[in-house]
């Protein structure tokens, strides 16, 4: 198998690959909506057992379409933002920090 050939082909058709990715993103959201609407008895039974706020929130969030997509997108941006900010609090130093 010519692995390098496959990678090169994908890179030459980068526009198509990127387009494919957009389609995949859209498809994931659409399929999640379809799944939720097809699912007839979603949170009803489970939510009744909910005793505290978080459990209830979890069961309700399961019925929101594309909840996890938003969680992934925002979560990633949040993590990077928090990490970078943390790094700037003098946590990131020059490479020779310990050997000066």
């Amino acid at each position, binding site marked *: 198998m010519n692995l390098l050939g496959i990678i090169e082909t994908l890179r030459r058709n980068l526009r198509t690959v990127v387009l494919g990715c957009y389609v995949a993103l859209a498809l994931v959201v659409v399929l999640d909506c379809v799944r939720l609407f097809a699912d007839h008895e979603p949170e009803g039974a489970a939510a009744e057992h909910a005793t505290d706020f978080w459990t209830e929130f979890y069961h309700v969030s399961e019925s929101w379409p594309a909840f996890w997509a938003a969680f992934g997108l925002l979560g990633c941006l949040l993590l*990077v933002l928090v990490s970078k900010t943390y790094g700037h609090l003098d946590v990131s130093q020059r490479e020779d920090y310990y050997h000066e």
Partner: protein
Amino acid sequence: MSSFWIHPSLILLGGAVLLPLLPKALKKAFLLAVPLATFGDVLSMLGAPSTNHGVVQFLQWTLTFGRVDSLALVFAVIMSGMACIGTLYGLHVEEDAQHSAAWVYVSGSIGAIFAGDLLTLFLFWEVMAFSSVFLVWFRREPESIRAGFRYLLVHVAGGLSLLAGIILWIHDRGTTAIAFESFGEAAYSTPGLLILVGIIVNAAVPPFHAWLPDAYPNGTFNGSVFLSAFTTKTAVYALCRGFAGMELLVWLGVIMSLYGVVYAIIENDIRRLFAYHIISQVGYMVAGAGIGTALAINGACAHAFAHILYKGLLFMGGGAMLHMTGETRMSRLGGLYKKMPWTFLLTLIGGLSISAFPLFSGFVSKSMITQAAFTQGWVPAGFLLTLASIGTFYCNGLKVPYFVWFGTDKCTPEVREKAEDPPWNMLAAMGAAAFLCVFLGCFTGPLYDLLPNQSAAHEFHPYNAGHISESVQILFFTACAFFVLVKLKKIEPHAGVNLDNDWFYRKGGQAVLWLARKPIQTIDTAVGEVYRVLGVNPLMWTTRVVDLFDRKGIDGVVDGIATSVRSLGGRVRFAQRGSVQENLTAAFAVAAILVVVFIFVF
């Protein structure tokens, strides 16, 4: 099943001793045979779990070297299996001591896993610490030597805590209570907490974690593959065995999982990045042990199993980069897919597995822990663990592959020249690990059959529409966010180190050195001066006085006595005339007079 039982650690230890004695022609075969025999030995135990072997009476202790049950076996199987893959990966390394150290290290881990009592556990715990440090030292860089000492320092401290806990435990409960079982309520007692600290030092739980990202990236290219697999997972086993259901562990696990991710996101060195993700992933297992339900413990074990393979694979990828190019910093790499395409593909498989992509091993193991959190009363922990999994994919599945093999080519000409796929044995080991990552992801049976709580394992089905949809949404949209950030040029890797809490003892050590150099030396000089002024000078003066006294006083007296004796001698000299006969006669005469006087008087 026969009663004949060989401790798998014994095979590895024997192999480690014999290896340097063998002729060169046999070495390669022996290197493969020993871990395979160990693996076979462990597999042979699957037929008859829940038996005790190797029970030894030592003084007043009953030591159990082979407590074989399903919890121990799931760890032993993967550890002995990883020993095969790791040895294959370093097969071309000529130095026997490196292989021997790795085998002794694995034997320590497997010995701790099978230990049925606390003393045996401690024994193998220390074997692990003292053999693994050589995998760091054998890199022979000055920084590795230093990191090795720091690693040893932390592990000796952790081991002491464990030992202190064990001693107090036995002191409280008598010598018959040394069996290593669940501590239950006693987990929060002083001995329980000391033992817990000993264990979570090895699990790299903050604030006892900094040894891991300090030492592992400084190990040899193949030594770090071993390091990534054994120490932390042995600790996870010990937590599952002794501290299952301890609520404190859930939050420690959640903190770990996020802490590791935050540091990994700002890390530049890929091996250090992978090391931070060990902390993050072990966080899931620690949380699983803390939740403590049948599903959560299964999850901790399954995730440890999957983790050893995919983390080994990632470290093999990083090791290949180090071995071939000598460079592991993303700020000095990039665009290497043309030179190292197979390394790219295999490392990517590791990255997708750790990210819990459907059809890869992490998907079928990590989800047990998150589901246990969501459905068994730990919903906020479940959300936070899911948040950490975003960072996992961001780093391992996206950032490393992108900035090492694609992105801007920032290689030095030297690195670019040297970059190519590694030797066959390294690729074969990576291929084996990658195959198992995909295999476990696609076929859950073999892994789930090994788990300790069988009924919970059979009730759990990771491949349902809801779970797949949830995972794919998270992963795809994380990727979307990543490429947006790449486009905005927000996340270019930068050269630098990130300070972690090893700062305290590294800078603390430097402070001690500075103290030794500056104030203590100044004080030493000052004390020397004071000593000279107040001590030596009066001493010299006293000496002179004594000398004078000696010469004028003592000598005068002595000379005086001598003079007197001489003048007395001169006078006595006139009383005798020197003839022997006269003298003898006089002497006898005096004697005769004395005898006569004596007779007559008495």
